[in-house]
């Protein structure tokens, strides 16, 4: 079977004609396979959703229990038939429960990566490379300039800053699903045992991670009712980046704004955002990891989606690997 007959881009997302399903559709469809819980990949209102149990749980937390007509949980490594097409979920290492979806039919195997990273992460199942004919890779950081440093190094900067500026609150911007929990866990793994304060928008997901056995230590709500400004001196406060721009942030003493994101690699990005302490921590693969993964899958053809496609396509051409950009729209990269 020709790959383009097995999966093809449609306005609603990546469509599988023989299986009659979409992967990560951006608008409501009768049957959706969802790679992970970020809102640009996992949307409410589909007829039936097939995803890992953790992704289903996360969708339930974010959209309410009735986010889809029906749901079915896929275990990692278990092959499920959807209208006669073999479908298998494999860990993507991106956030808790995130999966790559392997679609196998008529002798052709395509792996849709969703979003993925290769670095060890205590809050997510580790990525597994899957041999395939076509590998559909994300390209969020698909430029040679994106090279993520070790996350432990970045967390070290944060902790050193709390020692340098013990009178200032450290506000760490991190997206609510995945990044926030990973950052808190890294802070714990660095030996920081003081309470970490969290914005209300993170509470549900942090509770969920803890209930899944991921220890995040002593978390407290970052509210000042009943407390003084000085209570947050030298404290680490984690919240969604959007909260730091509004009144909420003004309650803290002379705050230092930190932001945990792969985009912080570019100085101008940090400057424009008024970030004093950029933490280059990403839940996506960096350039070197994208290349390494492409090679490991053994795929003879690479399809590139959401991100900076042109550089990755160029690199594949230089290696003699067929590559094209899918030009799917609607993926805004909530997670980094």
């Amino acid at each position, binding site marked *: 079977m020709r790959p383009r007959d097995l999966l093809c881009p449609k306005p609603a997302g990546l469509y599988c004609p023989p299986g009659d399903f979409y992967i990560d559709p951006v608008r409501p469809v009768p049957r959706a396979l969802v790679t992970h819980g970020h809102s640009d990949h996992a949307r409410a209102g589909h007829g039936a959703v097939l995803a890992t149990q953790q992704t289903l749980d996360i969708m339930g937390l974010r959209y309410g229990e009735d986010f889809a007509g029906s749901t079915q949980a896929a275990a990692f490594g278990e092959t499920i038939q959807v209208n006669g097409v073999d479908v298998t979920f494999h860990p993507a290492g991106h956030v808790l429960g995130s999966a790559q979806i392997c679609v196998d039919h008529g002798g052709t195997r395509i792996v849709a990566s969703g979003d993925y990273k290769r670095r060890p992460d205590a809050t997510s199942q580790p990525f597994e490379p899957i041999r395939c004919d076509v590998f559909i890779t994300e390209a969020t950081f698909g430029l040679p300039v994106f090279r993520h440093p070790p996350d432990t190094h970045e967390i070290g900067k944060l902790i050193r800053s709390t020692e340098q500026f013990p009178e200032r609150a450290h506000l760490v911007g991190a997206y609510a699903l995945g990044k926030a929990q990973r950052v808190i866990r890294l802070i714990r793994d660095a030996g920081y045992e003081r309470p970490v304060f969290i914005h209300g928008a993170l509470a549900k997901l942090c509770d969920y991670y803890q209930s899944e056995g991921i220890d995040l230590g002593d978390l407290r709500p970052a509210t000042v009712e009943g407390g003084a400004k000085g209570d947050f001196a030298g404290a680490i406060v984690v919240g969604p980046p959007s909260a730091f721009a509004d009144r909420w942030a003004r309650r803290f003493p002379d705050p230092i704004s930190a932001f945990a994101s792969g985009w912080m*690699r570019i100085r101008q990005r940090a400057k424009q955002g008024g970030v004093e302490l950029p933490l280059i921590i990403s839940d996506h693969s960096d350039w070197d990891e994208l290349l390494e993964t492409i090679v490991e899958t053994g795929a003879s053809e690479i399809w590139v989606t959401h991100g900076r496609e042109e550089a990755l396509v160029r690199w594949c051409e230089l290696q003699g690997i067929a590559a094209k950009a899918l030009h799917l729209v609607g993926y805004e990269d909530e997670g980094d």
Partner: protein
Amino acid sequence: MNRFAELLDRLVLTPARNGKLTLLVDYFRTVEDPDRGYALAAITGDLSIAAIKPAMLRTLVTERMDPVLFGYSYDYVGDLAETVSLVWPELPPERKPNHAPTLGEVVDALQSASRSDGPTVLARLLDSAGIEARFAIIKLVTGGLRIGVSARLAKQALADFGKVDVAEIEELWHGLKPPYNELFAWLEGKAPKPEKAAKALFRPVMLSNPVEDRDLEKLEPADYAAEWKWDGIRVQAVSEGGIRRLYSRTGDDVSGAFPDLVDAMDFSAALDGELLVGDPREATGTFSDLQQRLNRKSVSPKIREKFPAFMRCYDILQLGEEDLRPLPFIERRKRLEAFIATLDPRRFDLSPLAPFTNWEDLNRMRTSPPHPIIEGVMLKRLDSPYLAGRPKGPWFKWKRDPHTVDAVLMYAQRGHGKRSSFYSDYTFGVWQGALGEEELVPVGKAYFGFTDEELKQIDKFVRDNTIERFGPVRSVRADRDNGLVLEVAFEGLNRSTRHKSGVAMRFPRISRLRWDKPTIEADRIETLRAMLD
């Protein structure tokens, strides 16, 4: 190298002065010699490394990677040094040196490289460093760290680090060389002050306060001497043990711009006075004559001949081996008068005293001075020693035209018609807020009062110091340590509720560019409020 790289990154993104000081002090405390000294030299601009041109950097990197991928990367990042630091290919682990170079090693390698092997040495260093360190190395070789830290701020950090007065650091500074091991040893209390190490050091200057309402009625005229206030450039001429230096009031060495004056410094003393142009025995040049000698890297013999520099002296701080600063003004004045008589009269003269009997008298002299380059009078207490800084009481300045303020350039806008290719409309501000937390508040806008030559200079300043653009307007770097001071003259001042500052100027114009003046010494909003009509 990594600590230095991290320091640079933190400094760029830390807006508050106190935050920058904390970062610098922490760096000095936790990093060892000689690295911290080289970092200091890099920040103060005292590190000399042969420059590598951007084109060479581009060649080095495109020899190592696909030029198309480099092009995509550079387009995205927009900064060459940063792009190269990020995309520089990592050597495979077995070929990578197992030791990342320290800042000291990087500086050694770069300083000992010849012109022709500079690029090879640079490439080897980039191979052995990580991303952040590569960025710092490239910044060192391409010149200009641009981290928003002035030499003065760095010296303040040293003072905080060693818990000494910044004046002590400034006084020592020119006698010291990177990596400043003896300076750090002293600041850490491990060695004596490296005081007599060098000759012809700068002495921190004594500054005056403006005469304000009711100041004078509390003072006794007989306790003070008056001098004319010359509208030149405050300088300090120091010559000791064969070393001659001419310093600006902030301790910058400006000898290079005034070789004619330095040639005449065949004495052993430290003099305080005003730099002017002309022949003091015949005529003193105007401020626009003086402008011909300012802000130039080198001065042609023709200009030197047409506008010879001389120094009109009003104080003597050192004579031979003797430090005269503890002596009362009247004593120093006697020594000064005797000493000036022995110098080349074309290059040095005495700023004469202006005798007066009462304040009325002095007020008349102030408002109708005998020479156009006099901008008022100075009052100096006869019994006052020479003190660094701006002590309240011993010295006053009383300006002729009360309607001028020193303001800081904040925004510049493109002009119209003939001037549309220049940034020629300027918004300027003065300081407000508590000491140490000053902020600039805009007080007016002016678009005339400067010459075409000055317009070009300001335009260049604006382009080199832009921090943000909004359409035709650029906001320029203006903080405690960086920026351009404009002397603004105006006809009057009204209260205004429309302006954040609460004041509105009538007919403001730029009367002088004060390249020599540190921004923090610009006027405060209180000074303007006191002038309200």
